[in-house]
C-alpha cells in the first residue's frame, strides 16, 4: 500500500480548515462548527471509504490459455465487482506495463462502479519476458473526493502468467556447440550405436541378417541376434545456476535477465534435442533436478517445465548447486560442462565452459 499526498490540494484543505477554526474561535453555533466538523471528518471518512471500497472489491483476471508464449497475443479478461453498497468512484487501474502490453486497458485507466456493480474488461495481452510472473492489473488506486491523497493498493488477486521463452539459436551462436559433440560419453536411452554390441535376444522378424550371431544360434538352436550398444557421446551437461531472488523483489531488470537465461537454456537444449544428441541439464526446481534432452520430445518436456520450474525451495539447495559448480571447476575429463549464470553483471560471465 502506498499513500500519495497531493500538496496543492492539501494546502487548500488546510487553509479552509484553518479558516473555519478561526471562525469557530470567534463564533459558536452551527454556522461555524458544522462546516468545521465536516472538514475535519473529510479525511478520516475518506480513509474509511477507501477501505470499505477495497474490502468489497473483487477483481479476477485470466488469460485464455494456461501457458503463454513470449511476444504472442492472447486474450486477457478482468472481471471487477463491487459487492458493497457504497459506489466506487474513479478507481485508477495500474497495469504491469513494464512486463506486458495490454492493448485495450490503458495503464491509469479510471473505472467507476455503482453499488453492487460489475464490469468486465478484456484486452489482448502480450508478455514481454519469459518466466512466471504477475501480469495484468497490478494495483488499484482510490482517492478522496477532493484529491488530497490517493492510496495505491495491490489487487486482491494477481494473475500469474507462465510465459515460455522463445526458441532461438542464441546458444548455438554464442557457444560452438558442434565442437562439443563427439561419439563418446553419455549413453542415450533412445539412440544406439551403429555396430552391434554384446547383448543378445531371440531373432524377431525384421532384424538384419547381419546382426544374427550364428555361433550362439547354433548352440542354442534358436536364431539369436546381437543388439547394438546404446549410443555413447561425449557427456555434455548444462548447469543452470539461477539467481535466488524472492518474487516480491522481481523487477524489470530481473525479468530481463531471467528471460535471457531461459531463452539461452532452451536454445541450447533445442540445439542438442533437434540433433538427437543427448545433453544433461541440471537446474533448480525446488530441489536440484536432472533432465536429459536427446530428442524433440524430451526437449518439449523440458521446454514445458522450464518457464515456471526454476526456483529454489531453500538456500541449502542453492548452496548445493554452487558446490557442484565448484567441484566441476576443479576436475577435468568428466565431460563438458556448460554453466549458465543468471545473476551476473558482466555478460561475459554469463556462460562458462568447463572440460
Amino acid at each position: 500500500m502506498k499513500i500519495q499526498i497531493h500538496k496543492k490540494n492539501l494546502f487548500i484543505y488546510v487553509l479552509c480548515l484553518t479558516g473555519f477554526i478561526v471562525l469557530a474561535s470567534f463564533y459558536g453555533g452551527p454556522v461555524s462548527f458544522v462546516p468545521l466538523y465536516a472538514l475535519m471528518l473529510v479525511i478520516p471518512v475518506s480513509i474509511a471509504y477507501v477501505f470499505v471500497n477495497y474490502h468489497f472489491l473483487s477483481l479476477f483476471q485470466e488469460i485464455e490459455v494456461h501457458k503463454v508464449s513470449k511476444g504472442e497475443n492472447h486474450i486477457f479478461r478482468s472481471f471487477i465487482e463491487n459487492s458493497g453498497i457504497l459506489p466506487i468512484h474513479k478507481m485508477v487501474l495500474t497495469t504491469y506495463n513494464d512486463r506486458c502490453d495490454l492493448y485495450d486497458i490503458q495503464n491509469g485507466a479510471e473505472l467507476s462502479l455503482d453499488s453492487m456493480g460489475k464490469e468486465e474488461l478484456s484486452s489482448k495481452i502480450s508478455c514481454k519476458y519469459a518466466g512466471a510472473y504477475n501480469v495484468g492489473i497490478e494495483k488499484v488506486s482510490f482517492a478522496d473526493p477532493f484529491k488530497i491523497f490517493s492510496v495505491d493498493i495491490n489487487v486482491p488477486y494477481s494473475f500469474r502468467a507462465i510465459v515460455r521463452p522463445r526458441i532461438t539459436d542464441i546458444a548455438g551462436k554464442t557457444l560452438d556447440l558442434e565442437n562439443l559433440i563427439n561419439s563418446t560419453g553419455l549413453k542415450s536411452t533412445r539412440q544406439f550405436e551403429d555396430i552391434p554390441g554384446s547383448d543378445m535376444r531371440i531373432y524377431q522378424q525384421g532384424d538384419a541378417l547381419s546382426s544374427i550371431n550364428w555361433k550362439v544360434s547354433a548352440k542354442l538352436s534358436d536364431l539369436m541376434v546381437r543388439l547394438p550398444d546404446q549410443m555413447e557421446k561425449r557427456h555434455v551437461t548444462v548447469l543452470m545456476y539461477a539467481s535466488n531472488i524472492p518474487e516480491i523483489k522481481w523487477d524489470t531488470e530481473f525479468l530481463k535477465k531471467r528471460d535471457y537465461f531461459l531463452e539461452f537454456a532452451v536454445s541450447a537444449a533445442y540445439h542438442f534435442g533437434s540433433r538427437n544428441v543427448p545433453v544433461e541439464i541440471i537446474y533448480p526446481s525446488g530441489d536440484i533436478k536432472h533432465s536429459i534432452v536427446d530428442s524433440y520430445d524430451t526437449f518439449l518436456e523440458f521446454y514445458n517445465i522450464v518457464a515456471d520450474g526454476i526456483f529454489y525451495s531453500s538456500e541449502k539447495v542453492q548452496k548445493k548447486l554452487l558446490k557442484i559448480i565448484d567441484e566441476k571447476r576443479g576436475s577435468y575429463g568428466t565431460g563438458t560442462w556448460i554453466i549458465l549464470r543468471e545473476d551476473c553483471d558482466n555478460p561475459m560471465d554469463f556462460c562458462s565452459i568447463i572440460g
Partner: protein
Amino acid sequence: MFAFSLLVTCLELYLLWDKKAASYALFTFTTIGLFFFYSILQHVFELFASGKGPTVFSLLPSVLLFFLIRNATDSNEASIAVIVSALLRLIFIFLPNVEKVIDYAVFAITPLALYLYFSYNSFRENKLVGVLCFVCLTVLIMSVVQKLFIEKNKDVFPIYFFIIVGLFSAVIPVREEPINWTYVIEAGERFSENIAEKFDQVSYFFSDIFSTDSFSSGYSTLGKAGGKIASSKKTQLILRTAENPYFTFKDPVTNKNMIRRRTIYLAGGKLSDAEGLIRFAHFMRAHDADKQYVSLFARTARLSIEYGYLKTGDEIAPINSILLTNSRDKIISEKSMLPHKMGYTLNSTYLDIDYGSPYLIDLIKSPLKSAAENGESPASNGLYYDNAMTYDECQEYLSNILGIDLSKIISPKEYDKLISTGEDAASKALAPYLDTTGAGSRMQILAKDLTSDALDTYDKCRLIENYLRQYSYSTVADDKNAGVFDLSTTKGMSQMADSFLFETGRGYCVHFASSMTMLLRLSGIPARIVTGYRYVFPFEKEESYKVSSANAHAWPEAYIEGVGWIPFEPTTVYLTAGDRSWNKAPVEAQVTDYAPIYESVPHLPETIAGAPEPVVKRALNIAYVIIPVIASILLLLLILIFGSRAIDKFRYRHSTPGERLHMDVTKIKKSLRKLSAEGFIDRGLIYDYIPLAPSSIQDNLKKVFAIYYRLEYSPSDIAITPEESEFVKSVSEEVLRLSDRNS
C-alpha cells in the same frame, strides 16, 4: 437536503416578518416528512404506471390530508405544511434541469443563511433545525464544490460520502460558545514556564556570582516608588497546606451550594503576632463568644512557605500568624541579616479570619454602639485589657474556642507584660500610624467629606475603601513623578496619594494602599501599608501552590481599638473581604446587628384585568387523518393499476395492426424479462430474449420476432395480415400468463 435547507431558510425569512409564528420545528419536520411521503408514493406508483401519472397521483392525497387536518385541529400550521410540501414536490418535479438548478441555488441559499444568522440571529429558534439546516448546506456545498472544481462538472463523487460526513457532523454536539483555547494556552504557558524556570534557575544561581542585588522579583522590587511595573511570573513562594483550597457555602440568595476559592494575604517582614492573638481573645471574650460563634469567622490554619526565586531577608508569612517556625526552631526576628536562599521554608500557624463575615463585623461595631448609647465619644471605647484575663484563663479560653495552645506562643511572663501595657504606651505605639506629614488640604477635605456621615471607625474605613474602589486600576501610572516617591516615608506616601487621588486617577495596589492609609490617618484612624502577597488558591487541591511575583501586593490595615489591625482591600481589581466571605451562618438562624442594605421585596404585579381565558386547543387525532389517507392511497393504487390497464386496452383496440405488433412485442419482452433470472442485459437484439422463454414457446416467439423484423426493416408496403396479428396476440397473452404464473 436541498428542500430542507430551502424550507428552513425561507421560514427564517418569514419569521423576520411574522415573529409570532409558532411551532417552527414541528412545521419544518412535518413539511419535510410529507415531502418524503410524496416522493415515496411517487416511486410506489411508478411500479404500476409510467409517465407523469404517478407524479400527479402521488400528490392527490395532499388534498385529502389538507381538509382532514384542517377539520381535525385548530392549528393552521399542519394544513399549511401539507400544501407547502406538495408545492415543494411540484417544484422539484416540474423544474427543468433540476440538478443544475440545485447546484447553483446552493450558492445563493448559503450566503443568505449566513446573512440571516449573523445579522438577524436567525436559526436559533430551534437548535436541531438550525444544525440540520447547516449540515444540509455543508453537505451540498461540499458536493457541488467537488463536482464543479475537482471533477470539472464531469463525474460526481457519490453523494453517499458527503451524507456520511454530514451525519457524523450532525451527531457531534455543536457548541454555542466559540472554541475555548484556554487549555491549549495553559498548556503552552506551562511549557514556556518550564523553559523560563530553567532559565530562572540558571540566572538565580549566577546572580550570586556576579552581583548579589541584581536579581529582580515581585516582592523585593515591587514598585513601591509608584512607577511603571512589569511583573514577571517567577515563582517566588511555594505554599503547602493539607487543607482544601476552597470552601463551600450555601448561597443565601439562590439557596444553592456554592464553592469559593480561598484567598490568603502573606505579609512580609513580620513576626508572629502574639499580641494580636491576645487582643482577639479578649475581644471575643468581651462579647462572650463561644466556640460555635467564633467558628463562623475564625479558625486556626497551618501553612508551609518555601522560598523560590526570591532574595530577601524578610520573613513572609500569612497575616495573623501566631506561630512561625523554620526547620530548626521558632523565628524570633522579622528580618534576617542575610537573604534567604531558595528552598528556605517557614511553617506558620495562623488565625484565618473572615473579615467579611457579618457576625465579626457585628462584633466590631457593637462596642462602639454601646459606647455611643452611653453617651461616650465613639473614639474612646476603652481597652479590653482593663478587664484582662489571667494567663491561665486566656489559655483555657483560646484552647476552647480555637484549639490553640497558648504556652507554645507566649510565656506567662511575656503575657503579663503585654496586658499590663497602659493606654499611654498603647497610644504612643500607635502615634506613627497617625502621621499625616505632606497631606495637602484637598486630601484633608476629601477625608472629612467621606467620613462625615460615618457612625464609627469601621464605617469610616469601609466608606474610604468603597470610595477608592471607584478608581481605575492600571500598572502604568500616568504620573510625571512616577518612580520618585518613597513609600517608606509618610511624605512619600502623601505625595503618591495626592497625585493618585486628584491628578492621575489610576494606579495599582501601592497607589490605592497609600491613598487609603493617608485618608484613614486624616480621619483619625491609625493606618499602615503592608506589603507581601495576595494569593487566590485554585479550585483543585494540589500538593503545592506556586505564588509568583505577579501576586505581589500592598494593602492598607486600619487599627480599630479593641479589635486590632484589620486589612482592607481598596484595589479595584481584587475582591473585598465581604465579597470573599465564607458565608458561614449558625445552624439556628441568628439575627446580626450588622444589616447590609437589602433590596425591598418587589410587590407582586397586579392581576391584569380582562386577561383572556386560556384556550384549550384540540389535539390532532392521528387515526382520524391516517386511516382516510391510507384508504385514499390504496384507492389511487387501484385506480392506477386498473386505469393503466384500461388505457392500454383502449389504445390497443384503437391502434393499427402495426402498432399492435409493437405493443405485443414490448409486452413479450417485458414478460420475458420478468421470467428470466437476474442479470439479463438488453443488448438491443430481440433474439436474445428467446432463450429466456420456456422451450415450448420458443418456436412461436421466433415466428413473432420474424414478423416484427419483417415489418420493421422491410419496405413499408408489406403489411401484417390479420392472421399474423392474431397469432402475435395469442403468443403475447401466453407469455403474459406464464410470467404471471411464475411471479
